[in-house]
């Protein structure tokens, strides 16, 4: 069985889905259902005490989906740790997507604060899934401190540019001891399929689904793309042929054997 295993827990779906940017909780719930995802990310924000909105948490069936709180909004390790503890108090779940993004324009993750926070959170018993730029050394260091996965970005959040960091992600995948989840910037199902074809263990998609004209259909499309990409990877797709440059024969000396 080709299951995804994170922190000892098994999943059938390799598509993780985010819940931001939807037009309504109802659409969000339908899209999550269509995606087949089993892990759903959420964020923490102050309650708007002047305006009682829909509480989106009620739209997600906690028995069906694993809620993965993220620490979006945190700009430092301390803030991320604080948010993680709050999230754990809210849900009783100790899984956290660690996101430390001091830059409000590209929302790129801070490698130093992320590593600092990861080390502390792992010690406090959290299952840490860190969001990072596609940095192979950082990935190894995070694994050394005990994170459950690494989540390198394909391109900046919401940019929908696809696998701009492909070469680096390939190295991360080659060297990883934990599942690699490609997160951020996957704008099309073909991007998700590509990530799976090169060996990613899973992908996380939010913007491309939430902002599509038909999010439910787009969610299903991503689901199929992830499955197709994974199948291709497992079946050993042939790569581009290697061109050997013409040069004098190197094994002629063995002819006498």
């Amino acid at each position: 069985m080709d299951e995804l295993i994170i922190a000892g827990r098994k999943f059938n779906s390799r598509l993780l889905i985010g819940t931001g940017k939807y037009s309504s909780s109802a659409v969000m719930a339908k899209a999550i259902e269509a995606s087949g995802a089993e892990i759903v990310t959420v964020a923490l924000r102050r309650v708007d005490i002047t305006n009682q909105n829909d509480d989106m948490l009620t739209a997600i069936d906690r028995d069906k989906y694993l809620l993965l709180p993220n620490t979006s909004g945190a700009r430092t390790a301390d803030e991320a740790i604080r948010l993680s503890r709050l999230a754990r108090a809210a849900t009783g779940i100790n899984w956290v997507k660690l996101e430390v993004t001091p830059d409000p324009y590209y929302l790129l993750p801070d490698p130093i604060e992320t590593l600092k926070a990861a080390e502390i959170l792992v010690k406090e018993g959290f299952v840490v899934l860190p969001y990072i730029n596609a940095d192979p050394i950082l990935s190894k260091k995070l694994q050394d401190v005990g994170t459950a996965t690494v989540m390198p970005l394909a391109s900046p959040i919401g940019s929908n540019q696809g696998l701009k960091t492909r070469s680096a992600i390939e190295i991360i995948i080659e060297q990883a001891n934990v599942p690699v989840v490609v997160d951020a910037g996957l704008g099309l199902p073909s991007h998700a399929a590509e990530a799976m074809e090169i060996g990613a263990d899973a992908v996380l998609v939010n913007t491309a689904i939430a902002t599509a004209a038909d999010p439910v259909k787009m969610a299903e499309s991503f689901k199929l793309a992830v499955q197709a990409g994974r199948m291709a990877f497992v079946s050993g797709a042939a790569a581009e042929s290697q061109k050997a440059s013409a040069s004098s024969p190197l094994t002629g000396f063995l002819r006498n054997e």
Partner: protein
Amino acid sequence: MSVIEKQIDIKNILADRGLDGWGKDIWMKRLGEIKPSEVEWALSRKPGYYVLDRLLILLSPAAENYLEQMAQIAHQVTLRRFGRTVRLYAPLYLSNYCVNGCVYCGFNKSNPFPRIRLSIEQALAEADIIAKEGFRDLLLVSSEDKEFISVDYLCELATKLRPKFSSISVEIYQMATDEYAKLFAAGIEGVTLYQETYDRDTYRKYHLSGPKADYDYRLSAPDSYAKAGMREIGIGALLGLSDWRLETLSLAEHAQYLMKHYWQSRVSFSFPRLRPAKDVDQSQFNLLSDKNLVQMILALRLCFADAGMTISTREPAYLRDHLVTLGITRMSAGSKTNPGGYTNHTGSVGQFEIDDKRTPAQIAAMLKSQNLEPVWKDWDAGFLLPPVSH
């Protein structure tokens, strides 16, 4: 520790895949069934792409018809990663006293011959000669003579050698992590140690007594020296004990495991091929042909683009001259495998017979003639260690 972590251990990896012996027949059958189309698939993958299946295919009898293509790719990959260079090193044998009874080895404790061990001063005299030849990369070798060639002896020797040699590594009996750590602190930056054979039955057959007779203990050695911080992790199998193709599969799994868990060190492969040795009956081995050895080197190079690959003077000159274009990155020259052999005053027994007897200068000339630069000094551990008083 999560459930998953417990499973990742080289012993379990080999056992799961039947590579420690029980799956021998299955693997041999698979090797025999590989088709040309599969070889073409394997060749089309990016250099450095390693999965067991790819290596299996490249090692198969079917791949023997593709050696030239493999060689061209291996040559290009090695050139890109390592440049037009080959590192040179010399072995310094410190002792041939041994407490182990390994059937294939010239130093087997039950072989009757006068044993010799070098004092620190004698070892330094040997090293002087080696340094005069131009070497700056030294490999200290010893059989299992822990009592005399102790951790303290090695640390003292390494400290005294550092002014002359920029890189010191060892190929000696297995020790504990904290002992390797002492060696590392004294300036020894690499350890080479061979599992000899990954097949448990074969291992039992050839390792009759002594600490080395314990397969699992032996298998854990690279973990110990990697944990101690060694920069160079050398592994290998003694080719000729078990089937070379299966050994290569096990060796590759071992390498990948080490690369993933000790990511700040470099894994290197060596290819010790059984050679005639005093008082050892050769008829019991599965000797490999030159073609087999070449296929092994090429297959590994295609799967591990960054691994070091070392060839010693066990191998004949003509073969070594070709191997330097096929993926080899480091070679010994002018080697003496008998303690005291460089100063030549003891007439002691060597571990195995040397074949390539050329001098270091001749080897260097050979490399230059192939447009390769002999590198005598690579990394200098001296940068990071406290200053040594001369």
